[in-house]
């Protein structure tokens, strides 16, 4: 085992020696290359730099390509620099297209710079191991840039992406800050939920996309591993989708790849950027529930209809409780206002050879739940880039550090128990602030907010760092290596004080402790070779990956603390129980290569391949090969096209096919392993080992067309994809005589995800003062379980159906209201007198039919307006549609008072409750739950430049931002984003702020 490290060290050492050796060689060889330029005499060049409107631009970097001298324009846009004829002057400034001019004999050179409209050719797209452009890309890569996400008041950058990318479906983890969102890129590929996470890569370093375990309020979705990134520090997020783009990630690319690139330093000059915003967030929706009068009326009718006398036992709300009390439980539970504050400071600068960026941020979000709880995050980041004067050697260092402290209320959440409490129920608290047990106890109930004084504190620390070194040996041949290191620690303490619980219970002051550590390192040496032969351009890349992840998890519980103040101080605990500790290690090694060819920048072929080895698989199956081929044809560059369709400025066909894999299964599944028994001193075998299981294979096929009209003012793209995941890794069911129920094995089950994706961008108006840009995306996905041999005999028999999507509900058949009882009726299909899974004959698809987003950017002089609409077409289910029992209902039930309408008779009987529970599992409650949401809206005013300059600022901006402002939907549930549960996805937030740059 030690041998591995030994070999690994040798590789690193060899790489470094090679690099240093080459640097020296090249340095001595390179000196000769610069001699000829020195012959002509230097002279001073002067000029001014202006924008399209003629206003001077200050701070523009002006330098000579290949030399060390450079300067920056002053407040009037003036510069002067010494140069010789034949030198190339470069003008560069963020947000404008760089200008390069070869000097002739002139002394004066005035430059007008054009704003950088993200047009096809220039913007570089991060494709992971290499960069490409929209024009030349053969794969399908979606991109979101800083402008779209930086103002959004969210904790994890994933939340900022909702609706913005075709084929990328993101559902929020809820309103508690820090909850992990769910992301699915082109659908659900694996039968196992945990097998559907994409690969996250931050500045070239992969981090685990599996949510972090928590025992707090976030236990269900888990904690988002991207929380500690500063949303403001992200330059761009690319999502790789098709085979051509993802195959280079081999076994980890099956579910797509999310590449997050943080911001880099400025090219030239020094700048200080600051931004501050503050705002408030609230829960945007309420269910329309009955008030006390309506509720009690319904209840009385229920007893009348049933012919039952209300008593203290069956009707404590009518007999025992006050009849004129009213509490809006939704208001009580989540009616609070959460304050949100965000501050950022960034200092950046650079010379011709070195640039840096140093930033910090602070984010604070309160809670909408009762109590004083909040989420705080502090991040720091540094990016350093250095380049040798001859541009051959390059060093890039980036480090992102974040720490957050999430203080959450212990036991308050949205659920049917609390929202649907009778509106005349007694008070939750006594006058002294303690929980009221007496009034609830009189009805034989526990206080529904039992556990209210519980709270949890989760602190996490996260570092993601990377050093990239590259050296160009020869024109065209470059050696590059990246060395990455990450760690993530989380420490959680959950307090359960005695006073949270009924004094009659025999509990004590308790605490739960959970800590998780993740760390990883990665080394990726690569050679990159570029060559041009006539019109043939070749780009080759060969590299290797060595990666190791280690995880450690510890947890225990303490109980019997003498006082509440001591909770968590484990020395004061009477008993420590349920202690457990576990670690896992994962190693991954691969070689990969890419060969890109093009002829005349018109015909492109891209071949990628990867050979992967993962420690997650047994010794017989550690390695596998993945590969893809992508091709593109820019047909608009053909002469006949240009003459026939002059308005068509760009046209490209592209297609790709290839395989990727998925190794997201637990570590060590192949080991015949023993673990400690719960009882002391024992070991026991935990499962059957299968040394032969292997990767899930995902074959992706894609075709697309991209068009640009009228000099690319209108751009359109259409993609069709068809992905098949086979060799599904599942727990293969075994009879108990083998000792266990299943063994991890590959089954020839196949899941297909296919669909269409359309994007459209247009620059509607582009006048001097007024500019209006629109972009639109829509995805029409389809998911199907194509085959699963012997599914009837597997543990998935009552979860999935062959020929249908994975995300389905199996339902009873609703037969209307029973004419005799007036209650909902369902069909007993096999007529065995029982309603059970054998009667599930209706298959309901829970997937979105289509979804997408529409974004508009408008600017008029100094004012700009951005708004983004997210839309989804889907169905959802309502939960509360029967009336008469001891729980509140939607106002909709008032329609059943007179016995008309589709709802069942008002009743409190057991039969009616059973009927409504059964009806819940039919299509009866299914409604259209499509929605259009004004996801974000920003209004900004740029202070006039002449005003800001006089007070020494480069620019200043004030802005207002709204998040989740309006949702239009016919769905009556709490939030159509969670159409099958009573839950809110996102808060409505309104913020205002100021941005000042020096």
């Amino acid at each position, binding site marked *: 085992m030690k041998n591995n490290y030994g070999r690994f060290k040798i*590789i690193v050492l060899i790489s470094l020696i090679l690099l240093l050796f080459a640097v020296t060689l090249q340095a001595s060889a390179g000196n000769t290359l610069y001699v000829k330029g020195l012959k002509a005499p230097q002279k001073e060049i002067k000029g001014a730099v202006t924008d399209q409107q003629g206003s001077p631009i200050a701070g523009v970097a002006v330098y000579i390509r290949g030399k060390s001298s450079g300067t920056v324009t002053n407040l009037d846009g003036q510069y002067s620099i010494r140069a010789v004829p034949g030198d190339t002057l470069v003008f560069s400034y963020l947000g404008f297209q760089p200008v390069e001019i070869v000097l002739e004999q002139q002394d004066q050179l005035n430059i007008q710079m054009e704003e950088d409209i993200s047009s096809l050719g220039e913007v570089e797209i991060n494709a992971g191991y290499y960069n490409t452009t929209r024009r030349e890309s053969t794969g399908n890569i979606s991109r979101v840039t800083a402008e779209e996400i930086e103002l959004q008041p969210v904790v994890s950058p994933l939340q900022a992406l909702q609706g913005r990318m075709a084929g990328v479906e993101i559902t929020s983890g809820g309103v508690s800050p820090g909850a992990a969102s769910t992301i699915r890129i082109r659908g659900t590929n694996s039968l196992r939920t945990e097998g559907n996470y994409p690969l996250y890569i931050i500045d070239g370093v992969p981090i685990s996309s599996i949510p972090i375990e928590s025992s707090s309020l976030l236990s269900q979705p888990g904690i988002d591993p991207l929380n500690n990134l500063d949303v403001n520090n992200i330059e761009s997020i690319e999502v790789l989708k098709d085979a051509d783009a993802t195959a280079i990630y081999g076994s980890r690319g099956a579910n797509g790849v999310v590449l997050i690139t943080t911001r880099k330093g400025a090219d030239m000059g020094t700048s200080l950027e600051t931004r501050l915003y503050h705002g408030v967030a609230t829960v945007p929706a309420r269910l329309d529930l009955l008030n006390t009068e309506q509720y009690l009326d319904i209840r009385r009718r229920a007893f009348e209809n049933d012919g039952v006398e209300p008593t203290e036992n069956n009707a404590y709300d009518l007999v025992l409780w006050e009849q004129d009390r009213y509490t809006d439980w939704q208001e009580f539970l989540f009616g609070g206002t959460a304050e949100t504050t965000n501050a950022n400071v960034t200092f950046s600068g650079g010379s011709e050879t070195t640039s840096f960026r140093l930033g910090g941020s602070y984010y604070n979000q309160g809670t909408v739940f009762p109590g004083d709880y909040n989420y705080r995050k502090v991040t720091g980041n540094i990016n350093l880039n250095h380049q040798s004067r001859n541009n051959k050697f390059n060093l890039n260092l980036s480090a992102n550090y974040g720490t957050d402290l999430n203080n959450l209320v212990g036991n308050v959440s949205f659920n049917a128990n609390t929202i649907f409490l009778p509106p005349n129920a007694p008070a939750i608290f006594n006058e002294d602030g303690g929980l009221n047990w007496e009034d609830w106890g009189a009805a034989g109930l526990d206080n529904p907010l039992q556990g209210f004084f519980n709270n949890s504190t989760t602190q996490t620390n996260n570092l993601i760092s990377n050093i990239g070194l590259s050296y160009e040996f020869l024109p065209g041949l470059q050696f590059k290596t990246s060395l990455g290191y990450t760690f993530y620690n989380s420490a959680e303490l959950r307090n359960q004080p005695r006073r949270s619980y009924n004094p009659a219970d025999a509990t004590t002051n308790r605490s739960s402790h959970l800590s998780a550590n993740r760390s990883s390192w990665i080394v990726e040496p690569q050679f990159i070779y570029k060559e041009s032969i006539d019109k043939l351009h070749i780009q080759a890349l060969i590299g290797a990956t060595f990666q190791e992840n280690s995880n450690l998890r510890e947890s225990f519980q303490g109980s019997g603390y003498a006082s509440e103040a001591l909770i968590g101080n484990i020395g004061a605990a009477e008993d420590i129980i349920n202690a*457990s500790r576990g670690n896992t290690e994962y190693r991954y090694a691969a070689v990969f290569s890419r060969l890109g060819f093009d002829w005349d920048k018109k015909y492109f072929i891209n071949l990628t391949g990867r050979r992967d080895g993962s420690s997650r698989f047994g010794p017989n199956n550690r390695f596998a090969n993945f590969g893809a081929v992508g091709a593109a044809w820019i047909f608009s560059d053909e002469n006949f096209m240009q003459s026939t369709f002059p308005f068509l400025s760009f046209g490209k066909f592209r297609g790709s096919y290839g395989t990727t894999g998925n190794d997201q299964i637990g570590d060590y599944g192949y080991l015949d392993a023993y673990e400690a*028994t719960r009882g002391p001193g024992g070991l026991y075998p935990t499962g059957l080992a299968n040394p032969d299981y292997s990767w899930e294979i995902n074959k992706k096929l894609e075709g697309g067309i991209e068009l640009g009209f009228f000099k690319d003012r209108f751009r359109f793209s259409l993609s069709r994809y068809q992905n098949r995941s086979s060799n599904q890794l599942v727990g293969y069911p075994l009879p108990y005589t083998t000792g266990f129920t299943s063994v991890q094995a590959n089954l020839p089950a196949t899941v297909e995800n296919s669909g269409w994706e359309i994007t459209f961008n247009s620059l509607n108006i582009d006048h001097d003062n007024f500019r209006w840009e629109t972009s639109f995306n829509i995805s029409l996905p389809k998911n199907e379980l194509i085959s699963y041999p012997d599914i009837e005999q597997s543990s998935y028999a009552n979860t999935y159906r062959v020929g249908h999507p994975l995300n389905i509900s199996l339902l009873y058949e609703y037969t209307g209201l029973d004419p005799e009882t007036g209650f909902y009726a369902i069909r007993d299909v096999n007529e065995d007198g029982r309603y059970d899974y054998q009667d599930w004959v209706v298959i309901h698809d829970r997937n979105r039919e289509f979804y997408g987003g529409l974004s508009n950017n408008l600017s008029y002089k100094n004012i700009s307006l951005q708004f983004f609409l997210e839309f989804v077409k889907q169905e959802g289910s309502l939960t509360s549609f029967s009336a008469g029992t001891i729980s509140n209902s939607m106002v909709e039930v008032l329609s059943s008072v007179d016995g008309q309408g589709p709802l069942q008779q008002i009743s409190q009987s057991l039969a009616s409750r059973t009927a409504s529970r059964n009806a819940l599992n039919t299509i009866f409650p299914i409604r259209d739950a499509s929605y259009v949401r004004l996801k974000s809206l920003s209004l900004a005013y740029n202070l006039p430049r002449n005003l800001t300059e006089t007070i020494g600022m480069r620019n200043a901006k004030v802005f207002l931002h709204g998040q989740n402002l309006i949702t239009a939907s016919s769905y009556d549930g709490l939030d159509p984003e969670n159409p099958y549960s009573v839950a809110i996805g996102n808060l409505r937030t309104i913020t205002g702020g100021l941005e000042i740059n020096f």
Partner: protein
Amino acid sequence: MKLHKFNIIVLLLIAPFLLLSCEDFVEVEAPDNKLVQDVVFSSDATAKSAMIGIYNQLFLAAFSNGERSSVTLLAGLSADNFRNINTTNIVRMEFEQNQLVPDNDSNLDIWSSAYNTIYMTNAMLEGLHNSEAITPELEMQLEGEARFVRAFTYFYLVNLYGDVPLILSTNYRENQLAVRNPSADVYIQILEDLQIAMDLLPIDYINEERTQVNKFAATALLARVYLYLEDWEQAETLSSQVINETSKYELLSEVNDVFLANSKEAIWQISPIGGGGLITNTNEGSIFIIDPIFSFFAAIQLEEEFVEVFDETDRRYINWIGYNEGIDAYFAFKYKIWSSTEFPIEEYSMVLRLAEQYLIRAEARARKGDLSGGIEDLDVIRERAGIALVSESNPGIVQQELLDKIFEERRKELFAEWGHRWLDLKRTGRAEEVLGANNPLWESTDLWYPIPAEERMKNPNLSQNSGY
């Protein structure tokens, strides 16, 4: 151009090296909280832990833990000692009314937990067999213990289901298609395992506890197996060996002390510590005792017809049977602790005890025709219970009468322990007569539990018992 060549040579040299190094790199060691089988059996300490693990798991395994899917409860319901209070619990009602269906969940629990236990013992035996590292003395002891637990588990499988697959390896590829072996073959294996266990196990308990088996545990179980196989000679010889070990075992005159941890009457017990110490009461205690206050938790009461079998002066009636006035119900009160988290643990779950050995010998002797010997042993039990001795009240008892007395005594002595009544009714051929009398739904095929439906879905080679 020189440089160019140099670079390409370096590239060519380095590339295969990168490829080669991958192979070893992706090997990882097992994590701290897991031990690979080979490692477990590479040292005495860890091999011992694997055996302790089996004992610990017996407190969690459904068939042996005394809880809702245990042989103690379910086989008890199948016989005529218990009544199920919670009549909405269909799973239990099916046992009580002898109307089991093949997809009864608790039936599956018995089956699955028994085979999981057998897997653990097979893994233990394979591990010991493949290892050179274990001290020979310890290896003997561990093999004896594992064989004992395997035989013990098969004893219940063969008595509840009849023919069952005889699984003796951990190879799931073979075992997933196993057929049912004739019960005679299963018994041959049980006998072999227990005889080897008797030879290998030490005479003394390994520590002060009676939770790890010694030679006499194997002897006691073997005596029972021979009784079931109607080999009276062997049953008498073996039970005598246990009874004669008077320095270790004695019938406690105070019946309330019998079920205490490590009582001198115990031959083998299962400790609640196997649950990790969260609760320290036995599951029998929590499931049978009807708490005076929390009587709404009550699940099982004793049949009044059964309670009436006892004399009022019987110490077992006085001490081992409780009565709850609130719901007017008798309950099994052998274990006194309903709920506890206190240490030290006061009561262990009894599996084998000396009283049964006396009853085995009494029956063996009576069957052989040694009636006075049988009476003598029976009276040992009756004397302790404080009821009239047969030698005094009915010295001239005939064989069949004596056997009936012994069966009745077994019922009274061993109720609420490991389904003794159900197994006794079956092996003595009286089940139909006794249970069928009160149950119009009784069929002769109800003697055997069904092979679980889920199991037959996964293994097409498993046949079903008739009547299902």
